[in-house]
């Protein structure tokens, strides 16, 4: 008697079996994980979600003092007579970077941090990094709201070059790209760290270097024109500059570089997905 089974567990695994449909069926779990991450982060704190604002606010103040006032680094992405408050400039870079580094850092520990649960029950493993990316997005949303308050203040007060332009719509694809890039890099690292713990050490250090290699604490004008193509290969750069362009209404935007960074992002993300679904089957044996 042969009978069709709904689920088959075998030793074989096809390269593109990414469990995406199954992951979608677990969307309630994603929602609950997001809630858990967010709620548990601020449990037993007096200020609660205010911490999401305080951190980037303080970082921005520090950046303004050190990079702006002491080091005197440029805050211009393009040459011209544009006036942008340093405070707003640093804050825009900071909230993008804090989302990116926070998400990458958290997703890179997916397997190691969840091994207790994952060693006991099956659920599509992709649920974890996705929910991490989403819960960080909430913090990002809060920070963006804070940014918009300052932004509106400068806009109303005047005296700056900030304008509202149709480019503002670019914020949405840019944020999406930022999510995909951070998650993609994170799950690549989390897949590799099941065997090589070295990478976990590298993440903190690597992210710091990456930040210096992205226009967070300085404007794009600092980069010599002949090195620009090399600098732009860093997919974070177009994300940050496009984000600033969209919000300020002026700045640096190159469609070519923007599309290249999208391509890099997508490639990294899919490499991540393939690696992740390969590793997730037997990672419990080696972790």
């Amino acid at each position, binding site marked *: *008697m042969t*009978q069709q*089974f*709904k*689920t*088959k*567990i*075998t*030793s074989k*695994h096809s390269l593109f079996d990414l469990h995406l449909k199954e992951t979608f069926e*677990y969307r*309630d*779990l994603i*929602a*609950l*994980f997001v*809630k*858990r991450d967010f*709620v*548990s982060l601020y*449990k*037993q704190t007096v200020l609660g979600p205010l911490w999401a604002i305080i951190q980037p606010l303080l970082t921005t103040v520090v950046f303004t003092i050190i990079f702006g006032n002491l080091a005197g680094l440029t805050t211009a992405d393009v040459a011209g007579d544009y006036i942008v408050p340093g405070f707003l400039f640093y804050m825009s870079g900071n909230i993008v970077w804090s989302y990116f580094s926070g998400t990458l850092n958290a997703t890179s520990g997916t397997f190691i941090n969840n091994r*207790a*649960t*994952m*060693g*006991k*029950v*099956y*659920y599509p493993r992709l649920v974890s990094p996705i929910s991490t990316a989403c819960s960080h997005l909430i913090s990002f949303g809060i920070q963006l709201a804070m940014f918009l308050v300052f932004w509106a203040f400068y806009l109303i007060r005047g005296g700056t070059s900030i304008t509202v332009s149709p480019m503002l719509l670019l914020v949405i694809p840019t944020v999406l790209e930022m999510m995909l890039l951070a998650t993609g890099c994170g799950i690549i690292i989390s897949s590799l760290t*099941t*065997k*090589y*713990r*070295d*990478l976990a050490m590298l993440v903190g250090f690597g992210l710091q270097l990456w930040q210096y290699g992205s226009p967070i604490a300085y404007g794009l004008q600092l980069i010599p024109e002949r090195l620009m193509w090399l600098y732009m290969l860093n997919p974070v750069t177009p994300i940050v500059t496009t984000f600033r362009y969209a919000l300020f209404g002026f700045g640096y935007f190159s469609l070519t570089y923007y599309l290249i960074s999208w391509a890099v992002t997508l490639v990294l993300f899919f490499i991540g997905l393939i690696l992740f679904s390969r590793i997730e*089957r*037997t*990672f*419990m*044996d*080696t*972790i």
Partner: protein
Amino acid sequence: MEELMIKIDNVTKQYKLGQIGGTTLRDEMQRLNARIRHKEDPTKKIGAKDYNRGETFMALNGVSFEVRKGERVGIIGHNGAGKSTLLKLLSRVTAPTSGEIGLNGRIASMLEVGTGFHPELTGRENVYMNGAILGMTKKEIDAKIEDIIEFSECRQFIDTPVKRYSSGMYVKLAFSVAAHLDSEIMIMDEVLAVGDMAFQQKCLDKMNDVSRKDGRTILYVSHNMNTIRQLCDRVVVLDHGTVIFDGDVEEGIKVYSSAFSNSSYSLDYSTVPRLSWLKNTKVKCLYAEYIGKNNIIFTGSEAPRLLLRWKNEEDITNLCLRIEIKTTDRTPIATAVCFDFYSGNKGETGESVFRLNISSLTSGEYNVNYTFFLKDSLGGNIDVDCVRGLSLIRETADCLIWNRKNWGAIQLPNLEAENV
């Protein structure tokens, strides 16, 4: 015939021995380099024997069995027999090395209690979390949350963070969630170990209930044979990664337990280490033997005649002996005593033959303990030596099929009906 729910077909799971994981990228690079140049592995410790590279261990070695809808299958076996590995494969925590498993329905596994509980969240939030991890949707949990809370007996604490729960409450809540799943197949691994007796019973009843009523299939792993007896209608015995028995519960338990008992009909105790609590070794048992036997099977009205030999470490007056009879899962069921049968001086060797009346025992295998003791002035007793005795198997032609699960192991003398 009911439809097939689980089909395990020649499944193996191989683990690598020695260092895996935890290795660093640098070590790996050096090793790779060495292999390319055919040099000795530079990461190997000097003087260390060739490490276990390439050596493997088969946790499961060709396991095949099928489970039909509504069956409650117990999986038993010694530590390392492969039970947990099998469950891990079934619950898709890790993948098999070869072979195939077919599942016909959702699986809910309760491999360990409180899986996925987050300490900061309240009981109610964790019910949702845990349910979702086990594959329920929010709507399904919404419909059942009241039942779950009621069953867990934790209503009072349901909105308190679970980090303040006692371990018992943890189990109760976790079990309640799992028991209310709609999954067709349930996997339970020693989950009941932490709950109190009443709750354990409640869980077993609940499992029995859902299995009979909704035709749920249950796989239950436990070392507690009593719960296996209560819940399961079939057992699979694993040993060193293979199935050595598949079928009736009592038969299976016998197969499993037989590895613990020894089937010899004589034993030398002179070098057997004693339990540490026996500080008072005034007597040392040397030897035991069933007289006139070359096996341990006693049929019909045959009564064991037990020869015991012992040595007096001190002067002994009025030595007594207890023969304690236990089932193969070590539950004591009966004891026979012989009072004041011997007195002797230090250094002498004593010897006696005891006739043990086992006519009340029903058919089956029993473990036996011999305990020598002395009575003290207050009427208590002081154990002076205790050894694990010769096992015995009783075979009687019972006039009815004995239901051991519900009737026990002792058949008292027949009732006498009086005419009134």
